[in-house]
């Protein structure tokens, strides 16, 4: 039997797990902060992923295959899931055409958060806006304009009966996603009178059935009538500035783009996309699908930049209405829940489905009382989200919790809700959801962070405590050391106070691993491993890994 195990099963397990063996946990070279993904490439082909097929593709067959993937289960059970590949030796995401470290590593002021990606103040109001394109295919009315400065914007209106809902949600989320580090369009709230608009001579209109024809004043009136006025004779809309570059279609949350040589990491293995689930859950961005992304080719540099677009279905908005009770709690077609309900003969209820909390039409439905970060679901499975590990989740949570109440208030203020009570409610919802997010992830991975060498000590902070999620009472910390290169003796565990730090005076030459753990009243956290290199008198952190 033992021989069988040695010869048969063990090699298979090793082979399966071998697929997840990552690189060495530390690197003596300075940590990488910029990805080399801005090489000049030929203009990639434009692609248009089918909206409906994307739903089918992600909902059915791949989910079946995922359920049958024994190697995946083995890796998860043995604590060796495929870790993200766009991170550096300090377990941080590298800046790239996908992501730029902003608020967590380089704290932004509330003013900077409120400004977000905006480089101006929106459409130029010194003259009329020329309507260049209209479309009647969507549920939310809208059209394209060119302002006197020649800049193109897409104007989108709020759904009837819910003034300010989707425009506010879109702007607020844009600011927060930008501060979190993602590439997003410049979105503005605008209000204008009818005489601000004129239909351009070259304007085209697409009817419900796809017929393109010259746009008329009647077409514009139809859209405006559908939109309805906001205050008096003014219309309120979201103005989304056309992204810079040449549009090349959506990116997928799985695989790589074949015609982009800079795209070296499978998208489902990017932490910036995996941990987007954490931010999306916080902001209730249920519509995180391929169709709401955009690759833009930058002619100056000759590379693609990857954007998240269309945040109309975030917070309490579902784009063309307020969110229903189930949104965020189950997928549009939820294989697991349907099977559960089928096999339990309807005895288990979907309590969330029957709840409806719409206190302010301009906020829609954004609950926090029953928000469970781990159970949150987008409209349909996102392959990058499904690869989320605890480390990725922790990374996302530390970004989410880096937004203080003032930061959130500043972002919410940019949504220009006319009712102060609605604005206060939205701030509270985001603060409560943020805290729930932090408490969830900071229990799965030790929330010890911001490691720094000060003199001969390794200092760190407990994010759960510094962010007010835990009081610190009944908690303690300990560390242990082990020589890694060269292999050396182990020491500890010893208690340690974060404010005092781990003493490093007796650290030998070479690389030593310092394992830090946090103790809650009833359990120890998994360790955070900090690799410290002593080169003579010089000490340097050369690696951080977090166990989960």
């Amino acid at each position, binding site marked *: 039997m033992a021989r069988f195990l040695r010869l048969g099963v063990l090699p298979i397990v090793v082979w399966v797990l071998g697929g997840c063996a990552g690189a060495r946990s530390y690197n003596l070279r300075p940590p990488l902060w910029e990805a080399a993904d801005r090489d000049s490439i030929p203009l990639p082909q434009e692609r248009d992923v089918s909206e*409906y097929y994307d739903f089918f593709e992600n909902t059915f067959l791949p989910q079946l*295959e995922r359920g*049958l993937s024994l190697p995946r289960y083995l890796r998860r059970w043995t604590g060796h899931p495929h870790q993200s590949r766009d991170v550096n030796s300090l377990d941080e995401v590298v800046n790239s055409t996908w992501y730029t470290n902003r608020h967590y590593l380089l704290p932004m002021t509330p003013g900077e958060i409120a400004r977000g990606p905006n480089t101006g103040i929106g459409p130029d109001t010194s003259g009329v806006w020329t309507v260049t394109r209209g479309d009647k295919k969507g549920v939310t009315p809208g059209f394209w304009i060119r302002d006197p400065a020649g800049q193109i914007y897409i104007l989108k209106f709020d759904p009837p009966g819910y003034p300010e809902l989707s425009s506010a949600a879109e702007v607020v989320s844009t600011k927060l996603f930008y501060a979190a580090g993602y590439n997003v369009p410049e979105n503005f709230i605008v209000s204008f009178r009818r005489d601000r608009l004129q239909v351009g001579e070259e304007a085209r209109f697409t009817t419900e*059935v*796809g017929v393109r024809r010259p746009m008329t004043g009647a077409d514009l009136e139809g859209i405006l009538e559908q939109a309805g006025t906001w205050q008096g004779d003014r219309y309120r809309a979201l103005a989304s500035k056309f992204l810079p570059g040449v549009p090349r279609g959506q990116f997928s949350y799985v695989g*790589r783009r074949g015609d982009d040589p800079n795209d070296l990491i499978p998208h489902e293995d990017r932490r910036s996309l995996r941990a987007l689930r954490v931010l999306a859950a916080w902001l209730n961005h249920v519509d995180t699908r391929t169709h709401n992304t955009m690759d833009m080719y930058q002619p100056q540099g000759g590379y693609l930049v990857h954007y998240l677009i269309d945040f109309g279905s975030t917070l309490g908005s579902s784009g063309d209405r307020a969110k229903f009770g189930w949104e965020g709690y189950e997928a549009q077609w939820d294989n697991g829940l349907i099977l559960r309900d089928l096999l339990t*003969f309807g005895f288990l209820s979907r309590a969330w489905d029957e709840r409806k909390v719409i206190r302010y039409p301009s906020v829609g439905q954004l609950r926090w009382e029953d928000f469970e970060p781990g159970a949150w679901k987008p409209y349909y499975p996102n392959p990058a989200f499904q690869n989320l590990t605890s480390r990725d989740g922790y990374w996302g949570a530390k970004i989410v919790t880096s937004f203080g109440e003032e930061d959130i208030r500043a972002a919410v203020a940019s949504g220009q809700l006319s009712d102060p009570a609605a604005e206060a409610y939205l701030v509270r919802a985001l603060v409560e959801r943020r805290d729930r997010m932090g408490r969830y992830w900071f229990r799965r991975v030790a929330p010890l962070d911001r490691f720094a060498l000060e003199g001969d000590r390794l200092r760190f902070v407990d994010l759960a405590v510094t962010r007010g999620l835990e009081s610190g009472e009944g908690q303690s910390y300990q560390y242990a050391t082990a020589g890694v290169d060269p292999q050396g003796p182990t020491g500890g565990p010893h208690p340690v106070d974060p404010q005092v730090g781990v003493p490093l005076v007796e650290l030998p030459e070479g690389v030593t691993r310092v394992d830090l753990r946090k103790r809650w009243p009833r359990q120890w956290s998994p360790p955070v491993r900090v690799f410290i290199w002593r080169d003579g008198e010089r000490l340097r952190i050369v690696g951080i890994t977090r166990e989960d």
Partner: protein
Amino acid sequence: MRMGRFLLLLILLPTSVRAQEGGGPTVDDLFLLPFRVAFFPLRIFALGLKEGITFAEDHRLFNRVHYAATFLHDHGVFLRPGGLGDGAGPGGRLDIDSAALFSSPVRAVLSAGASFRNYQFYQIGVGLPGGLANSRLTVFGGYRLKTEENFFGLGSRSQPGDRSDFTLEESSAGGQWTTPLGPLRFLAGLRYRDFNIRRGQDDGIPDTQDRFGGTPVPGLGIGTTFLVPEAELVLDLRDDPVLPNRGLWAMIRAENYDGLRGRGFEFGRFGAEVRGYLPLGRPRRVLALRARAEVTDARAPGSVPFYLFPRLGSHDTLRGLRRDRLRDLDAALLTAEYRYPIWRHMDAVLFLEAGNVYGDLFDEFDLDHLELSYGGGVRILGRDGGVMLRLEIGASPERTNFILKFGESF
């Protein structure tokens, strides 16, 4: 050989989107290879679906269909699948309703339908005020063709192996007067019904004339014409007629068939049905019960043509039996359905049915001699909240049926 290699390549390489996107095979891909071989037909289907959906989106076909359907609906034209009765096979019907075109107390409805089995249905109806408040008088005329009607012989002892088929053609005309009385609705009418019987069109089974030509089956090969006065009383106490959660529905009906053509065909028919809906704590979790009986008053032996006998065995009655498996003068049926929601737009159902046919229901009914059917399935709900499509499996000691049917069972 080349085709084999091509198929193998299709299985090995583009079995995941990631592979299509330029990623190489991984440990997981290799492990999943056997499953992917097994799922290969699904993958091919998915690829076809992708092309189809992409084409439809590129050409805005979904928008066009929706727009066209909305346009037609707004102009009183309703297209819907099914609607030709059990056994018709894939088909659809078209209704043109004047009420959507103009407001008038007189309402005209023109209907037509056809299926791949050449079942056909045409009808024109004109409704007008019936004199009393909310009462309506409807006059109508129509034609119906059923090309593959089943016949297994008469009585509960007929054998499944005796299956045969025939074509039934019916022309009808008449008038009905209906009036609501609170939760009650009363109907009185007179119909002219003309039947012709021809050879069945299912080549896989013998024609009824060939199979039963040597046995005394009333009406075999004989056309008949009847004048049918009828009366019906319905009590409707359901909370929602589209998808009831609670309440009661009951109906009694009487018809008299006076033969105008054919030798001595004359009989009366009485029917009663009660449906109850018991809510079980949640919306759409319901125990639905139904009891139904039909009794024929044959004025003389052989006075009822076999194609007008009460029948059991269909997508709504004894779903584990073949269509029209049982025929006799009387019939009784009991159904229990446990319905529960599994999705916003889908319910699941478990059902148990018991019933049989009798020469005389009151003399022969015996709980120990009921044919049983049981099964379950799912029901897709439409925009109006009602059942749009049923996908069910019905089983009985005789066979198992897979059922795809538009509309609610009861």
